């Protein structure tokens, strides 16, 4: 063999090798996108679980963590495979997130790793195990509800564990615990010894240093030496049982006395009263830790306690305020005479009864420590401690906290000399009398109330709320704020409304989903919320008093006091269960997206702190890598890389994988006439000629995306690596199209060959990260359009993915043209989607094939569908179920509705019949003798008559159900199902079948 042929052979091999490598890269990229989607879906699903609709257990949490970890790692592995390991630091970031999520997961029984002190600004109930119940709630009241609370910080359970270890009491505690468990009565001596050991021990230096550091900050932030309250906040405190008042609180502590006070409070874990309380309620010692709150004392003019519901007579529906002058010591400790005011719980908060005490003494904090009694000036002894205006503010605040905590509240408060209200503590109120109706009676009682809506939509957050309807039909004309306590009823769940939810008592929407952003906002506020009701704005009128039971999914007319009291009297709300708190903690390390701007220097692997950050980063970088493959290091010999010359300003780079386009030597561009890629041609035809570009100036606004997405680009590597690049990898049969239009990503991955079995289209639309307001509308719209074209579409949060496969060439071309139109359409969506009510009309317009018509929307020129009754008489339905009973029931019911029915109990016979006659709709069971439901489904699909298949399945057969969806079932219905739901589905399926038939006849 001569040299030249050998060289040629070598080059040929290299060429082939490069093509293979490119294919491998693309496969990696597809895998990355799939896993990326998987992570997004898991995040959205997990967020939905926080709404209380689902029952989940610790196994779910473990599975979630494992599945997320796997998917996120797969994303990163694929990125590193594409980029030749260019992002090793992303693996490090990922490992940290794995650890953090793992720690959040394991938090239930161990004291979590935490600093010795944390600022109150960073505290919420998800840190209950770190900061104890009292401080977790106070943080929540401050940070979520925006109330003023005293400044301060928390010495954590981690510090407590460290301190107790240093004090060497571990063994003694074990002994005490063992005696307790054996029923020992004489525990006083043992607990006294532990207490003294703690009081005599040195607080470890590292803890003291941490405390001093925070104290320094407190001192600097105010004028003069602050006096401090050192408050207990145990982990098992105020949980199932209240340890109210059992642990020590030290008031009026000067900064130098804080460490001693800290020791005192920790030692009170073993106070004699606490041990008796434990014995009484069978709560063994030694299983909790004490966090301690160190808070600046409020110079109180008046202070006291408010119960948001009178615990001795809840049926009276009143709030009770106790108030004293000065510090609240008198009120909390009882004993002295204080004012007592009873007020109505409705927003007028009028005074029902008032007893003003004769006040001779009041407590004030003194520098040097402690609180001392001072005489009240004679003239003020018989005056009320707080004004009516202040009472009103107190009542409103108590109701607000109660509503958020979903339980009646026991709140300590104070007014300072400037009249500012401080919340000092909030905890669930123990009801002295259990007067709520029992379950049975409740369900009977609520039956008496008129029902306005039942079983419509999806519960996004469980709970019960009541108030007058605040109706918002035009999202462009939102009221400045929702009246406090109102039930907000809106057409669409948009984030803009999210900002005004704070005062509402419940929310109902016509549109939206439980996995959307709005739902997440509602859950954050713990607002009872039902989304996607379809008709709430139409059937509810503004001002009407309603009660929303977002547990049974019912809206009652009027105030259903029994239900409201039932909610308040429950021991705790689901949000407080350990599993929910764990999930919230986990999600903090999973869901937030902090890397938003790819052009910012902060957009780096090292800055990824959540899984969401990681996948966002990896996706962005993967696209850059793909672009670079084309430009920077084109594979030798096969780098047919061309810019496509198009009549529209869409800058598209083509990379040929073989047979994708004709190549003119020496040219850097290709024209549409050069294209030979079967799937690319129809997409481009519609994308470039469908009218999508005629309104370009309008689309330049807002996000200015056209300026970035379509700017003609110099053909240099550095420029080409910009993330805005639009890219198509093509071969004769394959297309991978990656478009970034402004803040949206469109990906189309499709194969169109000769065998229908190999054909598929994957269409993915991911909304941007900064454009918030129109996401949910847009996602819903896309999903409906895709489904309308036979795609199996999933929408989670910002992401919409449509899949279809197994179509023949003609059907593929038709769908690909639709995809082209759809991409052009999404380009315009943001401009036009300002009004929620346009969603339906937009879907109709798109489906009618004229998405870019300039006609006004309301004037729909298309003839309406024929009436359903007329339609059903000509609809042929085949029913297949091996249970004759089921068949008979379905036949009877559907025939009554005018359908023509044939039933089969043997699947083989049904298949034979399907081969000879065209049916509009097939209803089939999944598990049967002979060909099973899936096989029937495939048979019907392959026959290509446009027949729609409805699969009936039990709850437990999800995998099969999923496969059925994937193989293109119209819908699957889970048993048990209502005949009404079935009928609706059959009707929809029939309509779709009819349309498919018309298309094939055209």
């Amino acid at each position, binding site marked *: 063999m001569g040299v030249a042929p050998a060289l040629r052979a070598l080059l040929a091999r290299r060429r082939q090798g490069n093509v293979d490598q490119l294919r491998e890269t693309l496969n990696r990229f597809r895998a990355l996108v799939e896993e990326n989607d998987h992570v997004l879906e898991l995040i959205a699903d997990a967020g939905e679980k926080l709404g209380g609709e689902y029952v989940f*257990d610790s196994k779910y949490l473990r599975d979630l963590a494992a599945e997320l970890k796997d998917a996120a790692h797969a994303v990163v592995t694929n990125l590193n495979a594409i980029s030749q390991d260019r992002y090793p630091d992303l693996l490090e970031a990922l490992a940290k997130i794995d650890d953090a999520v793992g720690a959040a997961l394991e938090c239930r029984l161990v004291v979590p790793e935490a600093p010795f002190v944390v600022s109150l600004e960073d505290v919420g109930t998800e840190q209950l195990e770190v900061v104890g119940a009292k401080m977790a709630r106070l943080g929540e009241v401050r940070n979520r509800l925006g109330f003023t609370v005293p400044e301060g910080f928390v010495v954590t359970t981690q510090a407590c564990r460290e301190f107790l270890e240093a004090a060497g009491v571990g063994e003694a505690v074990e002994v005490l615990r063992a005696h307790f468990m054996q029923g020992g009565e004489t525990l006083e001596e043992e607990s006294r010894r532990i207490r003294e050991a703690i009081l005599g021990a040195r607080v470890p230096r590292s803890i003291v240093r941490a405390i001093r550091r925070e104290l320094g900050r407190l001192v600097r932030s105010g004028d003069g030496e602050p006096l401090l309250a050192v408050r207990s906040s145990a982990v098992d405190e105020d949980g199932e049982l209240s340890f109210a008042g059992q642990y020590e609180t030290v008031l009026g502590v000067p900064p130098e006395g804080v460490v001693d006070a800290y020791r005192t409070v920790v030692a009170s874990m073993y106070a004699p009263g606490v041990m008796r309380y434990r014995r009484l309620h069978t709560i063994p010692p030694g299983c909790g830790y004490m966090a301690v709150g160190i808070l600046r004392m409020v110079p109180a003019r008046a202070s006291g306690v408010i119960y948001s519901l009178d615990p001795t007579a809840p049926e009276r529906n009143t709030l009770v305020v106790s108030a004293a002058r000065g510090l609240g010591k008198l009120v909390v400790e009882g004993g002295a005479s204080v004012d007592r005011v009873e007020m109505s719980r409705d927003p007028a908060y009028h005074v029902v009864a008032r007893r003003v005490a004769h006040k001779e003494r009041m407590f004030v904090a003194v520098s040097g420590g402690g609180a001392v009694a001072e005489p009240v000036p004679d003239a003020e002894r018989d005056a009320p401690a707080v004004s009516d205006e202040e009472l009103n503010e107190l009542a409103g605040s108590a109701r607000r906290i109660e509503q958020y905590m979903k339980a009646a509240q026991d709140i300590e408060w104070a007014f300072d000399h400037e009249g500012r209200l401080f919340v000092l503590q909030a905890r669930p109120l123990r009801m002295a009398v259990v007067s709520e109706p029992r*379950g049975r009676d409740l369900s009977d009682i609520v039956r008496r109330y008129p029902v306005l809506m039942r079983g419509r939509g999806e519960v996004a957050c469980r709970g019960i709320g009541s108030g007058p309807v605040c109706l918002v039909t035009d999202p462009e004309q939102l009221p400045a704020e929702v009246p406090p306590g109102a039930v907000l009823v809106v057409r669409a769940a948009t984030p803009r409304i999210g900002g005004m939810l704070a005062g509402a008592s419940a929310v109902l929407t016509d549109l939206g989903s439980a996995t959307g952003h709005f739902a997440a906002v509602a859950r954050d506020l713990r607002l009872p919320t039902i989304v996607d009701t379809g008709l709430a704005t139409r059937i509810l009128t503004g001002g009407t008093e309603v009660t929303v039971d977002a547990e049974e999914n019912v809206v009652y007319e009027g105030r259903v006091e029994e239900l409201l009291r039932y909610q308040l009297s429950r021991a705790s709300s689901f949000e407080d*269960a350990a*599993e929910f708190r764990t999930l919230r903690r986990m999600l903090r390390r999973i869901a937030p997206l902090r890397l938003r701007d790819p052009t910012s220097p902060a957009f780096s692997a090292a800055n990824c702190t959540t899984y969401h950050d990681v996948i966002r980063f990896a996706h962005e970088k993967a696209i850059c890598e793909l672009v670079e493959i084309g430009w920077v290091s084109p594979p030798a010999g096969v780098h047919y890389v061309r810019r496509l010359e198009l009549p529209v300003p869409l800058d598209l780079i083509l990379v040929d994988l073989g047979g994708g386009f004709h190549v003119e030597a020496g040219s850097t561009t290709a024209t549409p006439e050069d294209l030979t890629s079967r799937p690319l041609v129809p997409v481009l035809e519609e994308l470039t000629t469908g009218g999508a570009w005629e309104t370009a100036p309008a689309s330049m606004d807002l996000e200015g995306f056209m300026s970035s997405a379509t700017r003609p680009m110099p053909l240099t590597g550095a420029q080409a690596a910009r993330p805005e690049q639009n890219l198509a990898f093509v071969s004769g049969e394959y297309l991978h199209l990656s478009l970034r239009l402004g803040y949206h990503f469109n990906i189309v991955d499709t194969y169109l060959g000769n065998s229908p079995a190999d054909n598929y289209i994957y269409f993915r639309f991911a909304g941007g990260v900064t454009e918030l307001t129109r996401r949910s509308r847009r996602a819903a719209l896309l999903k409906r359009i895709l489904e309308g074209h036979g795609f199996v579409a999933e929408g989670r949060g910002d992401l919409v993915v449509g899949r279809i496969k197994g179509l023949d060439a003609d059907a593929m071309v038709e769908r690909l043209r639709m995809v082209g139109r759809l991409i052009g359409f999404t380009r315009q969506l943001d401009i036009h989607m300002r009004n929620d009510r346009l969603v339906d009309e937009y879907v109709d317009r798109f489906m009618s094939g004229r998405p870019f018509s300039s006609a006004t929307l309301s004037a729909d020129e298309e003839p309406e569908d024929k009436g359903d009754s007329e339609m059903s008489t000509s609809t042929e339905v085949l029913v297949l179920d091996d249970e004759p009973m089921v068949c008979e029931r379905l036949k009877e019911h559907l025939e009554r509705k005018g359908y023509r029915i044939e039933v089969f109990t043997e699947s083989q016979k049904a298949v034979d019949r399907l081969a000879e006659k065209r049916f509009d709709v097939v209803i089939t069971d999944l598990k049967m003798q002979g060909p099973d439901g899936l096989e029937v489904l495939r048979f019907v699909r392959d026959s290509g008559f446009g027949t729609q298949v409805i699969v009936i399945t039990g709850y437990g057969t999800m995998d099969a159900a999923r496969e059925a969806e994937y193989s293109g079932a119209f819908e699957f219905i889970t048993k048990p199902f209502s005949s009404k739901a079935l009928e609706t589905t059959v009707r929809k399926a029939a309509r779709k079948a009819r349309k498919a038939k018309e298309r094939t006849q055209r």
Partner: protein
Amino acid sequence: MKPARKKVLLVDDEPIVCERLRPALEKIGFYVESYTDGQKAVDRVMEESFDVLVTDLKMQKPDGLEVMEFVRQHSPATKVIIITGFATVDTAVETLKSGAVDFIAKPFKIRNLCDLIVKLTSEEAG
């Protein structure tokens, strides 16, 4: 006259499952007993007949299948629903074959289970 309340027996070794389901079922009018220990549930079945048993599958002995088997022998009228976090089509088929009327994968929506129980108990009523 008000009909007697239908009785539901819940068994799941994860307390959270009982804690969430019990009030939800009570609220819609059921009498509910819940146990995190299969043996206690079995003991109760000896003393009392329940309309519906909802049991987790994977538990310490006796596990869900054993509890179900026991209930089917001693209280054949009781309808059994299996809930499990280890859901596959095979387990579903197996449990349905062993006599459960339905099978629900965890996590599940509270309402789905409530609706199912309502349906099962009202079928019985006529």
